[in-house]
Structures are given as C-alpha cells and as structure tokens.
C-alpha cells in the first residue's frame, strides 16, 4: 500500500479511482498504481462489498471496472476496510463504522458537488440536473479571485462583496469536474456566457446553485452543451442566473 499512503499525503477532493474485479481479486487503483486489493476468499468478498458501499458503487462484475471520484478522506476509509480480516468478527463492527463514515462523507461531498461517479459524455442528456452545489466562499477566496482578475496596483474591490462571476466560476469548475473534463483531459472550448445578477453576495454567505443541461447536441463529433444555473440564497431567493455554452471535443 506504499502508493496509497503516498497518495494520501496530500489532501485532495477529487481523485479518480478505479475499482475492478479480476479473476482472483478486487483491486482499487489510481492511474497505474494499485492502491489495495482483496482476494476473492470469504474475508475478501466481505471487504470488497464494504469497500464498494463506502465508495458509493456496486462491486463490478468479474472482468468489469467502475470509476469513481473520491476524496483522500474517503479513500483512507476504503483502504482501512480493505485491510480488515473479516475472519475476525470484530472486523464487522469496525467495517460498519468506517462505511458509515464514508457514506456521511459521500453525502457531504454531494452537497458541495465534489464527489460523484465520473460521467461518460454519452450520458449527457437535455434536462439533466447537476448539483445542488453549495457555495460558501471565504474572504480569502474572494480576495484571491479579485486579485487574479483585477489590476494588481488597484484592484476593484466590489464594495466588499464577492465578484459575482466568482459564483459562476465555482459552478463551472464543479461541472467540468463532474463531467470528467479535467480527469479525462477532454479538449473544451467555452463558447459563450450569460449572467444576470439580482443582488450582491458577501463572503461567508451560503449560496445554492442548481444547474440544468438545457440542451446537448452532437455537431461533427463535438458535443455542444448549454448549462443553465440558478443561484439562490438560503431563503430560496434568487441571487443570480447564468447560462454557459461549452463545446467538448472528445
């Protein structure tokens, strides 16, 4: 598990891992490294089942594999499960505890839009919903965004509010991660953008974004997708709306 421990050294929210069943084992891999594996004996089958539940997927059939985005925290628990000896009855209690923690992490990550199964582009369908993404940007986040976009000598500070586009940029970054553009290194082009702001937002405000794939079409091998996003505050009042046109060239 040397590769696994090295991977866990740097906390990350999105690691694309692969769970596969071979003739003799269930293996968890990241890129070319096998992180852990369990042999298909009685103990290993129990471990594989618990690992899959913790990752939020089913154990793949023999010869199949499934890919998942997971945080290092979630992976830590999956690795711990794989190390348990299920011949020892006490392991079931421990596994149950680890699985429950992992499920809580999955739920929490889904709320913030940071963990999900990686989507195949062919799975994109008009009307499909994405999110909700919970946006909770700090003053430091806001400053970083304004400094990156602004004039270094005299950045416009937006009156202490968030740069409104920061909200949209946050959602776009989650969308492209969820669709697998970064992990799959898909060439993309951001073709157009529309945004309307109804009120300004301060750092620390919680904003919820719900995105919908308004339309999706295949043109000469490229996928043209238009995502509409509605941003609301915790009282469900509309803060902003946006529309993003993305061309993906798989």
């Amino acid at each position, binding site marked *: 598990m040397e590769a696994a421990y090295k991977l866990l050294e740097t906390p990350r929210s999105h690691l694309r891992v692969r769970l596969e069943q071979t003739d003799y084992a269930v293996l968890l891999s990241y890129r070319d490294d096998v992180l852990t594996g369990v042999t298909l004996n009685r103990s290993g089958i129990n471990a594989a089942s618990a690992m899959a539940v913790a990752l939020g997927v089913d154990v793949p059939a023999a010869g199949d594999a499934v890919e998942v985005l997971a945080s290092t925290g979630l992976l830590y628990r999956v690795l711990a499960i794989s190390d348990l000896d299920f011949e020892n009855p006490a392991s079931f209690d421990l596994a149950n505890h680890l699985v429950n923690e992992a499920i809580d992490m999955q739920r929490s990550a889904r709320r913030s839009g940071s963990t999900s199964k990686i989507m195949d582009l062919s799975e994109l369908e008009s009307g499909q919903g994405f999110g909700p993404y919970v946006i909770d940007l700090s003053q430091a986040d806001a400053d970083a965004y304004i400094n*990156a*976009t*602004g004039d270094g000598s005299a950045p*416009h500070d937006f009156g202490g509010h968030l740069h*409104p586009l920061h909200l949209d940029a946050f959602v776009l*970054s989650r969308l492209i991660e969820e669709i697998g553009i970064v992990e799959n*290194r898909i060439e993309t082009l951001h*073709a157009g*953008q529309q945004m*309307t702001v109804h009120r300004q937002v301060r750092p620390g405000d919680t904003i919820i974004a719900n995105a919908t794939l308004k339309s999706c079409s295949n043109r000469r091998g490229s996928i043209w997708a238009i995502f509409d996003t509605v941003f609301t505050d915790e009282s469900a009042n509309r803060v902003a709306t946006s529309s993003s046109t993305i061309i993906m060239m798989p």
Partner: protein
Amino acid sequence: MKSPTQIGEELVGFRRVVTQDRVTAYAHASGDHNPIHLDEEFASNTRFGQRIAHGMLNLAFVWEMMSLNYPSTWHKGGTVKTRFTSPVVPGEEVIVAGKVKRIRTIGGEDFIECDVAITQPNGEKALTGSATIPMK
C-alpha cells in the same frame, strides 16, 4: 464618475495584461484546472497549439468595467451576454471597452444596453456581446 447614459457614449475601459501567472492564479481562485489553461504539453496538442486564458477571466474584465461605470445599478439586475470569439493567449495585453448602444424599455422599466468587447493586440475580438443595466 458619471455613468454613461447617452447613445454612442463610451464606457471607461482599461487595458489588462493576461500573463500565465494571472491565468494560473485564476485557475486556483476559480477551481477551473482545465489543462488547456495550465498544461503546456496538453495545450500544444489542441487546436490552439498553446495554453489559453479562461473565457471567464476575460468576462471578469468586462464585469469589472460594468461595475466601475455603473456602480449603483449594475449589481441590481445587470445582465451580460457574451461570446468568446477568439482565445487570449498568455502575454497579450487586451483592451476592455464598451459603448452605449440604445435605451430599451422592458416591462415598463428602462435599461441601458451597451456593446462590450475585448480586443487583442492584433485587433481581433476575443469577446463580443452586450450588457444591459437598469437605469435606476
């Protein structure tokens, strides 16, 4: 500064240099780590042949211009609609500009509609579009 309200009146624009450092900082700040913006080798195999700036970074410049020109109304119903027509590559200094195009009445409310654009050093438009600002 008086907000431009007369048809044909130009907005106060600005120039901004888009360095790779800025693009990288934007990637970290926005969370958009698409390799086309950051990975030189990946970008060299794309249709652009090199890394390009985020479209949203260019749009942020337009947003800043609108906020500077219409500080009291832009964030109360302002709308921007743009197309990213040409990629900005790191090292370029772009010109961010706008001009009042017309006054429109929508649902009994008056809006100022501006043409907005970002122009690259070679004269090409990297971004074109419109911005609509409530009069009050």
